[in-house]
């Protein structure tokens, strides 16, 4: 391209052009360097609009059960998980496929901002169960645990109504399918968490189904 430009003018002008170009380059070096913005410079609202909302919804209520509902989720939990994704320390298949890449360049401030944003969105709640017997069985397990198998009540970490505690997630209002898949991934060892792996390994399929049913009513 440059050769073509020079060929089209006479040699003297060409030399002058090169000299000017060289000066421009030198001046550019002396000026303040402007580097392309790092992906992590996106503000919370931009991040939500361009990335998070595509799966989780602008209001934190995802349509597809592939993705968890974040509305009303505890900020401590969202923060903790995003940091795990960033560290690549949570490696269930969907975390790897989706969140590793999304979280890779997030700063602590961005993580905090996103966590605040979604936790402040109005939470949703489940609906009454069509299988009351199963839900009751789940309620018993949820509230009392199974001491003989060394399983504590779910309420200890997830709160009496599934509202969550500190960095332990809110379960109320979550997609039933999402909860069920997380349970199966804990059991398969695909999602790391010692307590939940222990719980899902000890419980039977029926008991897990009962818990999922009960949670879906909260």
């Amino acid at each position, binding site marked *: 391209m440059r050769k073509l430009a020079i060929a089209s003018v006479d040699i003297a002008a060409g030399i002058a052009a090169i000299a000017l170009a060289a000066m421009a380059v030198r001046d550019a070096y002396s000026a303040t360097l402007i580097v*392309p*913005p790092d*992906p992590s*410079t*996106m503000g919370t609202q*931009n*991040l939500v*609009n*361009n*990335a998070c*909302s*595509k*799966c989780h*919804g*602008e*209001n934190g*209520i*995802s*349509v*597809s*059960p*592939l993705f968890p509902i974040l509305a009303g989720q505890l900020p401590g939990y969202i923060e903790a998980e995003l940091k795990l994704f960033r560290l690549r320390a949570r490696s*269930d*298949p969907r975390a*790897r*496929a*989706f969140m*590793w*890449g*999304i979280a*890779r*360049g997030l700063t602590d401030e961005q993580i905090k901002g996103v966590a605040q944003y979604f936790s402040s969105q109005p939470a949703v709640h489940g609906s009454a169960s069509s299988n009351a017997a199963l839900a009751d069985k789940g309620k018993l397990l949820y509230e009392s645990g199974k001491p003989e198998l060394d399983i504590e009540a779910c309420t200890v970490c997830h709160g009496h109504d599934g509202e969550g505690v500190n960095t332990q997630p809110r379960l109320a209002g979550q997609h039933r*399918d999402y909860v*069920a*898949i997380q349970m199966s*991934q804990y059991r*398969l060892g*695909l999602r790391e968490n010692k307590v939940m792996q222990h719980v899902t390994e000890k419980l039977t399929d029926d008991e897990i189904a009962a818990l999922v049913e009960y949670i879906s009513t909260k």
Partner: protein
Amino acid sequence: MLAAQPARAVPPFARQTGLACEACHTMPPELTAFGRRFKLSGYTLTTRPPLVNDIDDHKKDTLFLTDLPGIAVLAQMGYDHYNRAPPDTGQPYPAHAQSDTFQFPDQFSLVYAGAVSDKVGAWLQLTYNGQAGSVGIDNIDIRYSDHTVDNKWVWGVTANNYLTFQDVWNGIGSYTIPNFNTVTLSSGGVAGAGTSGPILNALGPGSVAGIGAYVFYNDSLYFELSAYHSAVAGGNSPTIDSVSLAANGGAVDRFAPYARIAYERDWGYHSAEIGGSALYVNWIPSVGYISAQQQAAAALAGNTYTPGQTFNPGAINRYTDLSVDWQYQYNGPYNLFGFMGHVTHERQQNSNQLVAATFTGASSPIYSNPTDTLTQFLVTGEYFRNRHYGGLVSFTRTTGTSDPLANGGNGSPANQYETFELDYVPWLNFRFILQYDVYQVVANNQNPFNLSNANFPNSPGFPNVKASDNNTWVLGLWMDF
């Protein structure tokens, strides 16, 4: 009828979004539930802020340039071995017939894919086609998309040059599985078993362009209305003539409406879809092979016909294609399973002038019947383990009314073949493919290689031909980066 190139999955989307291939693809180019949503959202998800952007007085974006353009290379190589060497076409001198061909590359594409602004995305593809030996504009899809705050409604507009390229399921259209070269190598390539199909599969780059509007509700109900117009490559004149049309080709007259509806349900690791589509095309056919006799008759009437030219007066065939398609996917942590396919029924009303031979210079009719029908059935099952090893089995059967004048031979458009494929996928963007295509029936009286005396005047005695002569081994490599 037309050689449309299949589309491919692309790394720029991964670079733009930070997502792994498997977020959007079970096995490229087949989409997951999320991949469908990403496409319908206009390819716009990104975690990268614009490198350059400008905002007007109302704080609205007036410019949004990404920091890296989403460019990718897609390449396919193929080595084909036919059951029997095709006949000698080197006329008048004998040529050396080989039973294999090396397509290196079979296809080589440069693609821009990704967000253009926060609500607009594009797929622009330039392809070198190994069989045609030329570079040309390939698939284009430009989308505007938006959604409601609660994400329940996603809507958009697409402008594209390939009917069905905009689709997000894989049982029908340009993304039908199997997707590796089965069109170009098995049916349109050197072996060329006459595998006729509906016009739905044939309106591609270099032939048409269309605009469509769609809505996607609750990640489940999809509805689209599109209209396609002829956009013939190589001519900027509204006139359709032999300069721009291929022999035995043609062009869409006015607008061809296309409607698509689909219902999808996702649960756990499963996703299932059932859909339907309707297409209506007024088609201007162009002159195919011209016999000396026809040429003489035309000359007597003061006309000279050249292949590709339209008939005088403008003859129009009317096509109505109705389809049902389905897809089931199991996308588990270790195993992938897919089952998809379609049934397309086509009704083709041939121009009276071409049936009764009343067009200028006519010496004989072009079609035997006023109305021809065609039904295509395709079903595919696939399995992959750990996204590394897998394979598929596919069955295609086409039947239709016999039209000796249109199809030659006994006039039957019928064909039936299976594709068996084994895949080794060391990386998701680098795939080795071993494919075997087995033919039971090929069009034109089971005439392998689509032989006709017109094409092979020196090989009248190609003896003992049978459908299985077309059976083909394909060793392929497919890479995107």
